[in-house]
């Protein structure tokens, strides 16, 4: 069957010219891209691909053009001589293109690695620069933090020792107090209520009960009793405590602000004891702002990352002197006049929070107010069982 050779020749000739043209245009573009970012290994890779393609295109297209010219001129025999050489060069050149193309993944990997290293270097450089510029300040901050944590550790050690001592003393005193109270109540049964002896016995009973409550608080401080935990919504407990205090004492001239974190989940706590801690801290804050007026700010925050809840009670009262800060949780330490406070409530609060696996701390500036911060681990019922 006879076909026209024109389309084949035309496509071959025009195609061959374009085949030479395009790789050089590509080369020009890649060189321009590479000039803008000479360190980018991907552009270097593309440059090599284009070089190989250009060599392939020249060898192939020149061969094709030569073939058409020789055949049109009737020199078929000449083409038969050149043909194997042209074919061999073609094979070699497009094998090189294929081989270079296979390096794309490696080049890409190297490029990504360089980018990561560059980023890490930049970050390190920035950090170094920052440290250089703020060295003194950083050392000072670290030193302060270290001193603070040393102080906290010393205080925790001291409180632990006092707790041990208190527990021992309380246990020893508790039994004789029980016996005294028992005998006093026995004697009271046989006395007529109006007799002088009966009044004396009632006085003894009252003071023994006082002693017993002090011993109980000491035992709470020394964390000898295990908390009875249940699921508790902390915000509800804080609101209950606030209502209770509003009923008990006058809060008219005190501004109360609440800043609750809605993300705070229910927690496994001994509700009674946590309530007691909140009452203690709130009463302290109220006492601090009662004379001058001011505000009490109650805030909560949920730290999801560390599974911890923060309860903060801050007042704008007269604050605590620096010298007293380290002794604030010591049993029987009080700045109130004799007879107004036992100095046990903050110790008891400390014991309760520690018994829950949490921490309590205080920050204060005389004249500006104090802030008590309670950190409690957020334990759900499931985790506790697990």
């Amino acid at each position, binding site marked *: 069957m006879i*076909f026209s*050779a*024109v389309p084949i020749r035309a496509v071959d000739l025009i195609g061959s010219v*374009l*085949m030479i043209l395009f790789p050089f245009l590509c080369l020009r573009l890649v060189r321009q*891209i590479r000039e803008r970012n000479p360190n980018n290994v991907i552009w270097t890779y593309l440059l090599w691909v284009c070089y190989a393609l250009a060599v392939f*295109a020249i060898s192939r297209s020149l061969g094709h053009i030569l073939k058409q010219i020789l055949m049109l001129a009737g020199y078929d025999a000449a083409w038969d001589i050149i043909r194997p050489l042209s074919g061999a060069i073609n094979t070699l050149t497009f094998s090189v293109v294929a081989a270079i193309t296979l390096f794309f*993944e490696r080049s890409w990997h190297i490029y990504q690695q360089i980018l990561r290293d560059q980023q890490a270097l930049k970050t390190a450089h920035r950090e170094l620069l920052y440290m250089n510029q703020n060295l003194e300040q950083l050392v000072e901050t670290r030193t302060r933090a270290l001193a603070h944590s040393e102080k906290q550790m010393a205080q925790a050690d001291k409180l632990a020792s006092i707790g041990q001592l208190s527990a021992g003393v309380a246990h020893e005193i508790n039994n004789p107090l029980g016996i005294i109270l028992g005998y006093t109540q026995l004697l009271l049964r046989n006395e007529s209520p109006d007799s002088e002896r009966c009044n004396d016995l009632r006085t003894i009973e009252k003071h023994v009960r006082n002693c017993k409550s002090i011993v109980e608080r000491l035992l709470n401080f020394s964390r000898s009793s295990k908390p009875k935990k249940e699921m508790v919504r902390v915000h509800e407990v804080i609101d209950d405590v606030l209502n209770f205090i509003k009923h008990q004492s006058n809060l008219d001239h005190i501004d109360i602000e609440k800043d609750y974190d809605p993300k705070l989940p229910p927690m496994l706590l001994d509700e009674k004891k946590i309530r007691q801690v909140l009452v203690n801290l709130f009463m302290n804050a109220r006492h601090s702002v009662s004379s001058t007026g001011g505000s009490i700010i109650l805030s909560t925050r949920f730290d999801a990352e560390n599974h911890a809840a923060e309860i903060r009670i801050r007042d704008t009262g007269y604050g605590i002197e620096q010298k007293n800060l380290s002794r604030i949780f010591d049993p029987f330490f009080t700045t109130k006049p004799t007879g107004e406070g036992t100095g046990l409530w903050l110790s008891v609060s400390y014991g309760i929070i520690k018994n829950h696996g949490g921490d309590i701390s205080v920050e204060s500036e005389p004249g500006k107010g104090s802030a008590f911060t309670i950190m409690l681990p957020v334990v759900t019922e499931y985790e506790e069982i697990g």
Partner: protein
Amino acid sequence: MSHRDNKKFQMAFSRILQHLALAWMFLNAGPAFATQGHGAPEGLYVHQIAHMFFALSMGILIYWLRKRDLVREIGWRYIQYSALFFILWNFDAFFVHLLEEQLQIIQVSRVGPWHIRIQTPHDFEWLRELYYLAKLDHLLCVPALSFLYAGMRCLLKESDANASGSTLP
């Protein structure tokens, strides 16, 4: 003859035999055929394998471009199309070489300067038109290069648009 003399005689005799054997080997040497000969079909085989290798490498390039999600960018997408056309061109060229030279099903002869005669065995007449179309292989390799050019242009534009100079994700 003492025992020692006897031993000396045996050693001299064995040396003479060794030299004679060596001399015989040199005098009777034939062609060793140590180097393999390469006939005409090997070139064709190498060429065909190179076409498949080229197609495979382009396929691998497409795979990596897609795996690294680079084809989301228009420049790399054009380069992907270029690789696809190169694959098609390689298959086309492989097919033409197979018909023309390897299987020798097709015979082409010139009929004047502007016509050609395509001959096939009786059972393969349908191949003539297909062969004629396949001969127009520039219709595949020129688009491949034009897509490569378009891809490079886009990468250059993005490079210009990007102040940092890198257009890569």
